[in-house]
């Protein structure tokens, strides 16, 4: 079992390069999500694995066999689509067993398998219905059953949940993961929704303008992004401009203009005066209720509160720094006090230096 190996794939449409030099190895049984903003080439990449698009250069291997130029029907992939693509003139079980019919599987055998698959997606009660008679979420389940019925070497999912409402999305994404794990199927999943990606993936591959930015497990890409794009794309964050004042070993002091001085930790030795970009997640900043305490602490930034919203379990504060940049804080500890502070008042916040991510231009400084 070798999974899917994508080597240096480049895909062009006329003069436009949709995917550039992407390599990825999806291990058997893994669920890898290709994540990125609209137009980043993730669907194109997926379709090239499926065979609907031919790369200009590079190779794709599935279970050790090169499939780069094979027509879609000979690849052994199975795909589920954003708009389900169920055939309206067939019943749902006919839809599910179609792949087996193409393989020449005899009627009783394939019917049995279809029922089995429908049970797996909890749709056996709908047998006999036409696709137009069931809801969107149900249709996607059928599509899943249809794809799994042919025992594919890899399941390809092209933004399958984008047309569904939020609640269904959460429900179905978990089911997709559970079922595929249960069957041990390799899954390549494409989405632009990062919470979806974070929730179900073994690894996430982030794509931007056709180029692979980073591949890694959710925790890793969240906490340890390789570049600024990944850092900003995954999870919420604020990016501030800073200048390195001094560095001692791995401890660095960075000045954020008139806002303050903060500490960050990184091994790479840089020259003082280096212009850095600082990424701070909202949950890694705290509001300091009174000024006095603030004077005694390190890693304090000051600014003016511009919005102050109570969100139930935290208060969301938008702080305008003297540098005119904005810092977003999710305050969980001093909820009431922070809330009471209102807006257009000066406030002090403390940044957790261990959570500060530093970047030189795009590149992450570790």
């Amino acid at each position, binding site marked *: 079992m070798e999974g899917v190996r994508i080597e240096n794939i480049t895909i062009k449409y006329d003069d436009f390069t949709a995917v550039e030099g992407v390599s990825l190895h999806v291990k058997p049984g893994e669920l890898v999500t290709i994540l990125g903003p609209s137009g980043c080439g993730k669907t194109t990449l997926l379709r090239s694995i499926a065979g609907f698009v031919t790369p200009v250069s590079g190779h794709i291997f599935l279970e050790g066999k090169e499939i780069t130029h094979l027509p879609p029907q000979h690849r052994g992939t199975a795909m589920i689509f954003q708009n389900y*693509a169920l055939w309206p*003139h067939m019943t749902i079980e006919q839809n599910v067993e179609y792949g087996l019919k*193409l393989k020449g599987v005899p009627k009783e055998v394939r019917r049995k398998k279809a029922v089995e698959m429908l049970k797996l997606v909890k749709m056996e009660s709908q047998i006999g219905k036409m696709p137009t008679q069931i809801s969107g979420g149900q249709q996607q389940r059928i599509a899943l059953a249809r794809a799994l019925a042919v025992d594919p070497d890899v399941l390809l999912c092209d933004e399958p949940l984008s047309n569904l409402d939020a609640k269904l999305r959460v429900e179905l994404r978990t089911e997709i993961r559970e079922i595929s794990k249960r069957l041990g199927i390799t899954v390549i999943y494409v989405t632009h929704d990062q919470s979806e990606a974070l929730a179900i993936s073994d690894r996430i591959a982030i794509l931007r303008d056709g180029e692979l930015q980073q591949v890694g497990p959710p925790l890793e890409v969240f906490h340890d992004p390789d570049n600024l794009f990944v850092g900003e794309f995954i999870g919420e964050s604020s990016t501030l401009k800073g200048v390195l004042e001094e560095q001692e070993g791995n401890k660095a002091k960075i000045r954020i203009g008139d806002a303050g001085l903060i500490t960050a930790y990184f091994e790479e030795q840089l020259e003082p005066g280096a212009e850095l970009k600082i990424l701070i997640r909202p949950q890694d900043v705290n509001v300091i209720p009174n000024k006095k305490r603030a004077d005694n602490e390190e890693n304090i930034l000051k600014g003016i509160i511009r919005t102050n919203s109570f969100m139930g379990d935290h208060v969301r504060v938008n702080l305008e720094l003297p540098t005119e940049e904005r810092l977003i804080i999710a305050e969980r500890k001093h909820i009431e006090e922070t809330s009471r502070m209102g807006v257009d008042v000066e406030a002090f916040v403390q940044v957790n230096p261990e959570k500060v991510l530093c970047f030189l231009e795009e590149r992450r400084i570790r």
Partner: protein
Amino acid sequence: MAAVPILNTTKSSISDFFNKIFRELKKDPLSWFFILSITAFFVYFLVVPLIIIIITAFTTENFAVHVRWIYIFPTFDINGSFTLETMKNVLSSRRFIQPGGAPLDYMIRIESQQKYPLTGQTVTYVYIKFKDYGIILNTIIVGILTTLFSLIIGTSIAFIMARYKFPGKVIFQGLMLLPLIVPPFVGGIGFSVMIGPQGLLNQYVFSKYLGLVIIFQGIAGIVFVQTLHFFTLIYLNVYSSLLNIDPSLEEQAENLGASGFRLFRTVTFPLAMPGIASGSILVLILAMEDLGTPIVLYGATGDNAATKVITYEIYNTIIAGEADARINPQATFLGAVLLLFAIVGFFFIRKYVALRQYSMISKGRAGNTRERKVGVLASIGIIAFLMAVFLIATLIQFGIIYRSLVPNAQNPQLTFDNYKNFFNTGAEGLWIPLKNTLMYSFGATFITIILATIAGYVANRKKFPGQSWFDALLTIPIAIPGIVLGMGYWKMFSNSGSLFGIDWLTLNPLNPVLILMISYTVRRFPFTVRAVYAGLQQTDEVLEEAAMNLGASRYRSLLEIVTPLISFNIIGGALISLVYSMGEVSTTLILVLDRNKGTLTWDMAHNTGEIGRLCAIGVFLMIIQAISLFATNFLLKNRAEAITGI
């Protein structure tokens, strides 16, 4: 030594090129097979015959182009040399181009104090005739006038139907389609029955109440007949155009202050222009290609002036001449001229049809009509206008039905003989022509369904270089004058060796069945193809991808997934092709020489004098057309495109 690197790169790029081609072929061999074979079909049966005609028009000898088949490859032995003589002769001959009009000719001639034979009254005869400007100019004039009048009538009706709401509107929407149901020849007959010298109108209305006998002659007659049929084409096109204009475009303009006529002139009309333009050009082409009307106006009323058009001239020199079956070089030149008009027109149509898309921006709202209710007076006016148009247009149909039952104007007697004749298997009977008509049309439609579905699919779904030319090839037949194609087939398949070493494609001796079916297939192809396109546009490609993904080849998916989903479209398009095939005239008249192989239309052309017989056949064809029209309206939502074929 710069030569070496260059050589290397060219060598590698050539081999790259071939590699790419082989890879492409290997990847989807079936598609390429279809593309190539369908292209070959059209090349043999459309392009080559037309090229032969064009070559002949500019070559000296009578048998200028002799097709010799080396297996499946046509080679042209050209005797004689290139010459512009024929062209010069035609263009300088007064017969063909006479800008001053023929001598002793008139536009209108009024003869008073004549005794009208049918009633014995003293009346004034009014002969309305357009001057004869020469065969080529006449043809152009017929085209322009017909288009102009059809445009005026058709656009007004379209606008009324699209923008106003009035009682009885739904009925009129159905009624307005009826004038479409005018099979060939029948228009001319109906015309002469109603408005001929002995027509019902003259006999019972004009002579009695107006003391006039109105006689349309020549070009005027042709234009009259054609307009009554073609205005519906324009109406359909413009109506569909108007309906598809995004209402928000007009609303925005209104919002900014434009209204009424200004709104119409600056916003509505320009947006509807593509539909108007494409409809008009189509009518222009069809009007110039009409063979049936001149034949029947001449046969029924002896009106020689009606024959002074290109189509009749070609027909006459080929067929009606008793002495020979060669093709007069003048005829081929005329054919080439007609062909030129048609092809140029066709490409303009395509340009405007493409433009049509721009006015349909947000399809979601297209269903919302901007209908306005109108006051009582306006309603009455509208209904009166529509009734008038409808009545005049259907005068022809009334006339035909009447004459099929009461054939003799002198001794009016009701008889069903002409209908009983359909079951008469004897020499005078219509059973054989009926059977032949059904056989050829069904055969052709059968071929068309298969080829058009595959061709339409390939042209629409597969991306390949030359796709747009392929599409043009499939749809251009609608503009090709049948008589020119018929001439081309004649030259190609008669007196020349046999294709594939088999006799049944040659016209010697007298066995045109298969080639007739092919000619119908080719000529009616665009209707089915367009219907297939429409269906494919409504079918998401994703459904095929899902099937291919699971292991279906592209064509298996076409068969099992796509075809069932567009079956209504295919059937609708095929139905239209079928019905139009049943009424095909031009190639049938040229290729069928044996009465036993003739179709109903062939029979009509050879019995132009027998009005009752002609009308009965006409009624039959009308019924078939009507049934098909309503069936396709039901099957295909988008009327204009499929019915008109653009």
